[in-house]
């Protein structure tokens, strides 16, 4: 079976990533985009573009009929969902099948199985592996759920059953906050995942986030592509990721890798997927499985010398892969930093606007996943990731060194970014030693960075530069902000 044209139901850097793979495989690409997304890199790169709706995600990137229609209208045979948006929506996978479009991803049944975090936990428990203790029953009444909390023991986490990607999670440290946290989690569940079913888990307070990239070929043979560590998270959103993990007992690593393969086999999984675990006190606990490409897939690609997107496309065409399990050995070390449009000195408050000059310092072992360029707009309709910077070197200290230099040499004008924050993180002794836990940010940078006064030299440079530049109005229209939670860990 040969696919000639792939529609991309996504935006930003991942859309560009998929288009590059299509170009290299000689497959046509169609970008399904929202009204406001016409000034982006993916829009320029795609062979064809179809506007599928208004800027609001509900009308475009989350609109199943509009995406299907868009793909059919130009004769695409397959849809790649990227990550986020409809990538883990079983209804979308089914709608593709019903319309004779190949969904580049697992079956609708596998998505549904792992999309319900409660059924996923049951599958893993049936295999004899540990999951995080808690309550995952059907009684969803607020009062009953609140009664379960003391039985599990504080602190606990409230999780939306249909959630994922770090959304729909609330930590409860004391009972007074429990009711509001429960309401808020249920509200986010309704808004983001159309279901307010929740479950409760004991909060793991000194764990590492370890995940396994797995890939099942068109014949159903499951490979593992080693592990990644994504312990550095802000409000459950990953910020810095790496492969292999910074610190993991080799026997425990083998156990985790083989557990991941068994989970994928049990679910008759097809294509790329990631099984996430928490590791605490030399024990591992299943967290969830993401049935899609991950944001942090480049660190695996750099260490293993594979191309996961091309592997996905080939598998969708029932073509063989280019690797065997014994080829999949990590070499060296890779680190990824996510560049977000947010003010590092202002609790991570999101920053929107038109991007100005952007400079990414190319060099050996440096990979830039770029979605936006000068003149492109960073809007509040979508998440605030502008780019990803990935460095690879022979070992972890060198990969860190390279990341530090690369971050320092990167220039982005027009919106505030988290680059100063990333620099503090990758320079921190707890990170460089590899001993960090998921509490890293809460512990060391709960409010982002302290506002540092500009030196008189810097002020002078800015003033002189301002006088030397074209005479736009110098009045800044700053609005005092009542945001209080933008960078606080909840």
């Amino acid at each position: 079976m040969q696919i000639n044209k792939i529609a991309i139901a996504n935006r930003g850097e991942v859309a560009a990533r998929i288009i590059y793979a299509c170009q290299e495989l000689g497959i046509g690409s169609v970008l399904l985009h929202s009204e406001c997304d016409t000034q982006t890199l993916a829009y320029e790169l795609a062979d064809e573009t179809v506007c599928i709706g208004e800027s609001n995600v509900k009308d475009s990137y989350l609109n199943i009929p509009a995406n299907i229609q868009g793909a059919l209208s130009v004769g695409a045979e397959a849809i790649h969902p990227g990550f986020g948006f409809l990538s883990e929506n079983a209804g979308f996978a089914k709608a593709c099948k019903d319309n004779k479009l190949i969904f580049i991803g697992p079956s609708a049944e596998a998505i549904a199985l792992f999309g319900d975090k409660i059924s996923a936990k049951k599958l893993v428990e049936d295999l004899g592996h540990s999951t995080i203790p808690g309550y995952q029953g059907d009684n969803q009444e607020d009062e009953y759920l609140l009664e379960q909390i003391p039985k599990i023991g504080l602190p606990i986490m409230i999780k939306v059953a249909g959630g994922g990607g770090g959304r729909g999670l609330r930590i409860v440290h004391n009972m007074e906050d429990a009711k509001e946290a429960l309401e808020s989690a249920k509200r986010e569940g309704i808004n983001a995942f159309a279901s307010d079913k929740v479950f409760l888990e004991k909060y793991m307070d000194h764990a590492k986030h370890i995940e396994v990239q797995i890939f099942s070929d068109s014949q159903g043979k499951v490979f593992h592509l080693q592990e990644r560590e994504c312990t550095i998270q802000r409000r459950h959103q990953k910020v810095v990721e790496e492969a292999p993990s910074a610190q993991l007992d080799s026997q425990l690593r083998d156990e985790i890798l083989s557990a991941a393969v068994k989970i994928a086999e049990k679910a008759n999984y097809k294509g790329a997927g990631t099984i996430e675990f928490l590791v605490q006190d030399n024990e591992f606990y299943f967290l969830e499985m993401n049935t899609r490409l991950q944001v942090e897939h480049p660190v695996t690609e750099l260490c293993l010398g594979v191309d996961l997107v091309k592997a996905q496309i080939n598998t969708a065409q029932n073509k063989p892969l280019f690797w065997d399990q014994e080829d999949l050995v990590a070499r060296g070390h890779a680190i990824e930093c996510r560049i977000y449009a947010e003010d590092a000195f202002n609790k991570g408050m999101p920053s929107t606007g038109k991007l100005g000059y952007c400079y990414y310092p190319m060099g050996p072992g440096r990979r830039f996943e770029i979605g936006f360029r000068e003149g492109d707009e960073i809007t509040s309709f979508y998440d605030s990731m502008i780019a990803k910077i990935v460095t690879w070197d022979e070992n972890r200290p060198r990969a860190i060194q390279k990341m530090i230099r690369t971050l320092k040499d990167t220039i982005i004008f027009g919106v505030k970014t988290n680059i100063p924050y990333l620099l503090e993180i990758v320079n921190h002794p707890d990170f460089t030693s590899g001993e960090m836990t998921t509490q890293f940010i809460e512990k060391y940078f709960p409010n982002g960075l302290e506002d540092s006064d500009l030196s008189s030299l810097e002020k002078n440079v800015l003033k002189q530069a301002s006088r030397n530049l074209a005479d736009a109005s110098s009045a800044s229209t700053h609005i005092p902000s009542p945001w209080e939670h933008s960078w606080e860990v909840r």
Partner: protein
Amino acid sequence: MKLLTLNIDNKEVKVKAQKINGITWVYYNRKILSLANKKASHGSTASGLQDPSKILAPMPGAILKISTNDDHQYLAGHTLIVMEAMKMEYSLKVIANATLTKLNCAVGDQVTQGQVLAQLEPEASHED
């Protein structure tokens, strides 16, 4: 973007710089600086600069929840409005004990940056 050669303390300094919507951006000494840098950060962290009689939308986004009570009186720290912007949920709080006088938004509204979402009358201070 322009490459500028500036004279700082009698030394030649070369920088990359650009002015966008009135804000000057400079890359100098491996750091990105912007002229509104300091002002912007102070405005939102120092409570003294916040107006307790208004809740403004600090960015465009959607209103998810409004938490009011019958007498419309709120203690400092009460979350009056919950917004969603850029995939994240944020709480907008009352910063001083106050009475709500006017609510200018409803759940589901898309609001623009700087829009006055709620007007409040702060409680008179009793410590003279």
